[in-house]
C-alpha cells in the first residue's frame, strides 16, 4: 500500500483534536476520546510522530471524501466520528486484523449506515421531489459573489500558482488534455505531479472562496 503524505507536522493533528474537544463539550462521545486514545491512534498510524500527524490528516481528508461521495450532508462530522471510534477501538486494545486504514473504512461504512436511519437524513431523488420542490434557481448575483470571492482569493496565491490554475483549468475535453501535457513538459514534471499541484491550489482556493462567500452573504443580510 502506498500512501503519499504531505509534510505536515503532528502539531496540526493535535490542534484539530483540541479544537474538536473544545467545540464538542456537550457531546458524550467526543468527551470519551481521551488524549491517550488519540495518541495511540497516531502511534498506530506511524511510529514517527511527525509522519503520523500527516497520515492522520490524509486519512481524515480521505474519510471526508468517502462520506461526500456517498452523498452525506455533513462529511466532516462523520469523518471525525469515524476517527473517534477508531481511536477508542485502538485504546480499548481491540485486535486489528487488517491495517488501520482498512479498519477505518469499515467503521466509516458503519457510521454511514447509522446516518441513513437518522430521521434528519430522509432524502429522495430529485425527480421524485419535482412535484413538491422546484430545483434551486440560479441567480446571477450568487454567481457574481463567487466570482468576486475567487478573484479576491486568487490575489492571495503566488503568481506561479495563479498562472498554474489559469493554464491548468482552461478549455475542456481534448484541448485541455493537450494543454496539460504541454504545461507539464514546460514545467518538467509528470502529469500526475501537475495534477497534484493544481489540485492542492484548487482545494485551497475553494476553501478560501467558500469562507469568503459565507462571510459576504452574512454581511449582506
Amino acid at each position: 500500500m502506498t500512501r503519499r503524505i504531505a509534510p505536515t507536522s503532528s502539531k496540526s493533528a493535535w490542534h484539530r483534536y483540541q479544537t474538536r474537544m473544545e467545540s464538542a463539550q456537550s457531546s458524550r462521545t467526543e468527551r470519551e476520546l481521551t488524549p491517550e486514545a488519540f495518541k495511540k491512534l497516531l502511534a498506530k498510524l506511524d511510529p514517527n510522530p511527525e509522519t503520523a500527524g500527516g497520515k492522520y490528516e490524509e486519512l481524515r481528508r480521505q474519510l471526508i471524501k468517502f462520506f461526500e461521495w456517498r452523498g452525506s450532508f455533513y462529511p466532516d462530522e462523520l469523518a471525525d466520528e469515524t476517527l473517534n471510534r477508531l481511536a477508542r477501538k485502538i485504546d480499548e486494545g481491540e485486535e486489528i486484523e487488517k491495517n488501520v486504514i482498512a479498519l477505518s473504512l469499515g467503521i466509516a461504512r458503519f457510521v454511514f449506515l447509522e446516518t441513513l436511519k437518522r430521521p434528519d437524513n430522509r432524502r429522495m431523488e430529485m425527480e421524485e421531489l419535482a412535484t413538491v420542490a422546484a430545483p434551486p434557481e440560479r441567480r446571477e448575483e450568487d454567481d457574481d459573489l463567487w466570482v468576486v470571492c475567487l478573484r479576491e482569493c486568487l490575489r492571495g496565491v503566488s503568481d506561479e500558482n495563479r498562472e498554474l490554475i489559469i493554464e491548468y483549468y482552461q478549455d475542456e475535453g481534448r484541448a485541455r488534455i493537450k494543454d496539460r501535457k504541454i504545461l507539464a513538459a514546460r514545467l518538467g514534471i509528470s502529469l500526475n505531479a501537475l495534477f497534484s499541484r493544481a489540485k492542492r491550489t484548487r482545494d485551497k482556493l475553494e476553501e478560501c472562496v467558500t469562507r469568503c462567500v459565507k462571510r459576504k452573504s452574512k454581511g449582506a443580510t
Partner: protein
Amino acid sequence: MERLQSQEGLIRRYLLGELSAAEQIALEDEYFSDQSKYDQLCQAEDELLDRYARAALSEADRERFERSYLTNPRRRRRVMFARALAQVVDEELAARPPAPQTAGGEQIERPDTGLSWVSHLARLPRGPHFALNLAAALIIGLGGAWFVIETSRLRARLAEALREGETQRGRAQTQARQVADLEAQYRRLAEERERLQAQLQAVKEKASPSYRPTSPSILFALSISAFRDLGGQEPRALIIPRGAEEVRLRLNLPEHEFPGYQVILLTTDGREMFARKGLRPQATRAGYGVIVSIPARKFASGDNVLALSGISGAGEVETIGKAIVKVRRR
C-alpha cells in the same frame, strides 16, 4: 484502452451514485488502499464539475449530475465554485495580450544604416561605368529598402490581425459558454413549464363537474399494516372494472424506513406474476408513499398475494410482509 475506459465509466458512475452496493464497496476498498486510485477519483470529480460548469455534459449526464449533486448543499457549493473558476479562467485568458510573434516567428532583418554605409560608399571607385553601377545600385537599394519597409508593415498588420483574432476567439468562447448556459437554463425552464402545465390541466380536469377519469387505470391504496399482520386481517377487496388496464397501487408508509422498496404480486400458490424493484418513497402529507402501476391482467380473479420488501442503502432486501387482495372483476 478498453479497460481504462471501463475504469473511467466505473468512477463516473460511483461519483453519480449509480454503482451497485458490491461495486461501490470494491471501489472504496481500492481507493482506500491505493493513493493513485484516490487521486484518479478526485481528478474525475473535478473534471465532472468543470464540464458541468462549462455546460459541456451531455443531456443525460447533466440530468444525472444534477440529481446527485444539486441535492446536496456541500456539493452545490462545489458546483458554484467550478462555475466561478471557469468564468475567471476564461476572462483571464481573454484579457491577456497574445504572445508577441511574427508570421514566421523570426526577427525582421533591417539594413545597416548610418555613417558606416556612407563611408563605405565613399570608398567605391569613380567614372562613367561607376555612375551606371551606382545608379543601378541605388535603384536596387531603394527597391530593397521599399521591400523591407513594406514587408515590415505587412508583418505588423499580420501581428495585429492575429492579436485581434485571439481576442475575438476569447470573446467567442465566453459568448459560446454563456449561450450554452442560457440554452440549458431555457431547456430546464421549458421542461418545468410543461410539467406545471400538465399539473394545472390535471387539476382543472379534476375540478370540473363533468370530470370523468379517462385513463383506464384505477387507484388502490394499502397501508403498511396490511402487510405486517397477514393472519389478523381480512383480505382487501379490489374491484377491477371492465376496460381497466392498470391498477395503480399506492402504499402508505408512516415512516421512511428504507431508501427503496420492492413489490411482488404472487398467486396464492406462490407463482410470481409481477415484480417491481427500486421503488423510491415520495413525501406526502401523511408521511411517505410508494406508487406502483401493475397491469390489471396480472391480477387473478379471487385471492392474490402482494409481497412488500424494503431495500437498505447497502442493497440488502428485507421482507416487510404480505397482504392478500381479493380481486373481483365486473
